[in-house]
């Protein structure tokens, strides 16, 4: 009663409709998932890209045969060449045991003992530019048939995939924002229609369009922010669960318990989640302002 006069449009009961905050909460929930998806794919891609791009694998078939120059074995020639190649660091010859271990799933526990003509495998780290085709060419001169592969092409594919995931997330965010704006506009229109007479009277008493619009906009903002905050909070447990699933791949600490779970979320998400109510405020305010001002133009 006492507060009535501060609310001549009776807006405390207008737009009280639970629909608006609930639908905005749903939108905010979707937005949180989209943002989390975009961030997660970025984090994972960064990990994978580093690992993949840097991996250099060299296979030397018939390692014990003499090399082209007939100076040493093919393996020794390749190993010597790798020592001096720019961009190639810490080459390591896989032991027979290690090779057996790698082949075991396909060839059984003792593949090497089968007497198959296995190549020698050298792993190294590649930090040079480009996909490293030059390595293969150079090594082939010493030991024809030598294969050298870097992860650069794979890394490029991961980048493309991450890019499309982020584009999808951005599209979801844009759609969510548009739908959110439309929801606010609809709720505001309903509120205006319900109060048509009151608004006409206040307009006739000399209220500026801006006065009336800001009353509606403040109310819409409160409801939108409440809805968006609720949606973001509801998304949190889902995000924690997803973070727990992703932990083995993300290189982030894989620990139990809620606190550790919270720590497992990418830090950028802690910035992004509070932005949802903020974005809802901006969208709610501007959508209501535009709707009311447009509607008021009908009045002389």
């Amino acid at each position: 009663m006492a507060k009535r006069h501060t609310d001549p449009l009776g807006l405390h009961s207008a737009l009280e409709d639970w629909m608006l905050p609930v639908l905005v909460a749903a939108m905010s929930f979707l937005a949180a998932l989209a943002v989390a998806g975009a961030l997660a794919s970025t984090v994972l891609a960064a990990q994978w890209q580093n690992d993949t791009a840097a991996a250099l694998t060299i296979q030397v078939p018939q390692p014990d045969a003499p090399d082209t120059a007939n100076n040493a074995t093919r393996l020794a020639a390749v190993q010597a060449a790798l020592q001096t190649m720019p961009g190639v660091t810490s080459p390591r010859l896989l032991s027979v045991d290690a090779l057996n271990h790698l082949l075991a799933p396909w060839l059984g526990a003792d593949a090497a003992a089968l007497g198959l003509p296995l190549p020698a495998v050298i792993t190294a780290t590649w930090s040079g530019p480009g996909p490293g085709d030059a390595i293969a060419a150079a090594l082939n001169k010493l030991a024809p048939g030598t294969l050298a592969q870097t992860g650069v092409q794979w890394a490029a594919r991961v980048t493309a995939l991450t890019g499309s995931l982020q584009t999808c997330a951005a599209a979801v965010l844009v759609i969510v924002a548009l739908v959110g704006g439309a929801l606010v506009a609809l709720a505001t229109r309903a509120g205006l229609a319900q109060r048509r007479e009151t608004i006409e009277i206040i307009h006739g008493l000399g209220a500026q369009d801006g006065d009336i619009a800001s009353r509606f906009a403040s109310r819409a903002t409160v409801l939108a922010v409440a809805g968006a905050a609720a949606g973001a909070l509801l998304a949190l447990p889902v995000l924690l669960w997803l973070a727990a699933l992703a932990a083995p791949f993300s290189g982030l600490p894989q620990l139990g318990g809620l606190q550790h779970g919270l720590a497992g979320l990418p830090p950028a998400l802690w910035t992004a989640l509070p932005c949802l109510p903020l974005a809802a405020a901006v969208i709610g305010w501007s959508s209501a302002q535009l709707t009311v001002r447009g509607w008021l133009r009908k009045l002389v």
Partner: protein
Amino acid sequence: MIRFDDVWLKYRHQDRGPGALARDVLRGVDFKIPDGGFRWLTGPSGAGKTTLLKLIYLAEHPTQGRIDIMGTHAAKISRRDAALLRRRIGVVYQDFRLLAHLSAYDNVALPMRLARRAEHQVHADVTEILRWVGLANRLGALPDELSGGEQQRVAIARAVVGRPKLLVADEPTGNLDDEQAGRLMTLITALNRLGTTVIVATHNHALVSAYPAPRLEMAEGRLTAHG
């Protein structure tokens, strides 16, 4: 000064049935009222009195012709300035137009609050004017809890509380008894003496003869007498 210069009006949204279609409600209305003037506006029901008043308080646009209100060409005014001008015009609507969810006090306070007056000023002026119209003991009542005559007095209080430069009243005594009508006229003439321009549309011939003043008389959308 208020000036009407060959004003015609046809309602754009014909919501009064097919009979009202495409009919000129005002047909070449011409008059002037000097600042501080007083005019009665008379004529049979349907003559166009309310329509003419709506043009004065900026609730309609003429279809044709020029209107100046307090020295401002009404067609040239921005929305912002129109709102500011409306704050200087007190209007008593034929159908009161009180806000149903606000008390008598808050209804009367509304124009002052829209004009962002200080709350102590609002309190002083609103209680004084409501006492003047005999509603000092009904400040907290909602319009629904008031009789027709009481509602009309709240509407009158709201129209005059901001000491308007122009007061427009559309049949303000329709629901009042003779004594209340007399009090209202005392209030209106007092405002008029303080410089407010006043136009009162009425059917009440006794009232018109009790307070002699120039008359705008209408019939079928035309002024049949002026002065």
